[in-house]
């Protein structure tokens, strides 16, 4: 009876101590490796030992493509962004919206937003067009204050992007392009 009790006690100790001693022995030269696996280490260091790190370094915010397109008759404006999906699965951009301002943080000209969610397949780069209507009165006022000026430098304020379930808010994005005025 005592033999059974002793055997079970030894088994209990072996079950707990065995794996811990084993893993400590395997990582005896690199104890930090016990808690920081190579995947996380290379992600922090920015190396490229596997696909994960390259994904991390390639993950970038959408970038502006060219100048915004502006229709002076209708007041419609369209701003295009390029977005690359470095992930192994497709991602969706559910929302992209901003307030268009004249100059760097000047008067508000109107709002732009994404019409419908966009799906981007793994590894693909897609151009996302965000559109809206600008306030004609504000444009006219700018033209009146700046006679002979054919273009208007714009900035984007309160930029909100929802990419793959992550919401990014940017207070101000200066120099978002030039609006070509009919002037």
């Amino acid at each position, binding site marked *: 009876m005592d033999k059974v009790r002793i055997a*079970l006690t030894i088994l209990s100790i072996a079950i707990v101590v065995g*794996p811990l001693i084993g893993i400590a022995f395997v990582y005896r030269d690199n104890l930090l490796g016990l808690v920081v696996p190579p995947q996380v280490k290379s992600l922090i260091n920015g190396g490229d030992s596997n696909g*994960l790190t390259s994904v991390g370094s390639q993950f970038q915010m959408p970038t502006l493509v060219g100048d915004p397109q502006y229709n002076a008759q209708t007041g419609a404006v369209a701003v295009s962004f390029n977005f690359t999906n470095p992930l192994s699965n497709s991602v969706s951009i559910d929302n992209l919206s901003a307030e268009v301002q004249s100059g760097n943080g000047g008067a508000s000209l109107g709002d732009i937003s994404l019409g419908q969610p966009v799906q981007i397949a793994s590894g693909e780069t897609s151009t996302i067009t965000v559109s809206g209507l600008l306030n004609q009165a504000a444009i006219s006022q700018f033209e009146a204050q700046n006679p002979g000026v054919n273009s208007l430098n714009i900035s984007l304020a309160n930029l909100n992007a929802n990419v793959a379930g*992550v919401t990014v*808010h940017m207070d101000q994005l200066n120099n978002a392009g030039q609006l070509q005025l009919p002037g």
Partner: protein
Amino acid sequence: MSMMGRIINWFGLSAGIITLIVLVISFYVPWWQLTIGQNLIKVNASPVNTNFGLLGGAQFTIPLIWALNLISILSFTACGLVMLIYSVNPTKDYSKHLLGFSYKKPLYVVISFAGCLIAIVVIAGILGMSIPLMGSTTLNIPTQLISSGLSISALVSGSFQLPFYFAIVAAGLCIAARLYHKNLAKVQKKGQKQHHYRLSIWQLSHQLKRFSFSRQMLPNR
């Protein structure tokens, strides 16, 4: 309870079987799952198999957690098997030791797992990040970690999965087996007393018979 005259602790038998089933299921289904964004970060946690997925890349584990998982695998296996052995021999002299070895382990594993999760959630809360044990919330990346004028938040959802509830059932059955063992011990004691009583009556009657026989064998005076 007995089957064909054999005493079996049915609670223990059920606990042993469910413990082994939980062990097998837990290799494939986590006890608790955390998802950030659209699978940008995924945590599959269980005492048996814990792994992480980052930015849609291959899943990986942390060596120390792997060792702790191995401890749980061995504990569950030993507990399940020993509980099964005990259940079919609950009245043997050594059975109490088998039960003592096995009935606490699933409970300890469930409590340790839940305790670790709660600790992680509390520590994350102290660092300003809300992680839900169950349900969804919005995780705001602390502003100290990112440049000014930028804020990043992500939808975080956490949920307990079926094996966790199975493990609670297994732990409950193990405790039930321990409690029921007291009844079995009483039944066994009662049976031993009755047996001893029957034996005494038989011995008395046997001696009486021998005494009367010896009287008969005495020469008549």
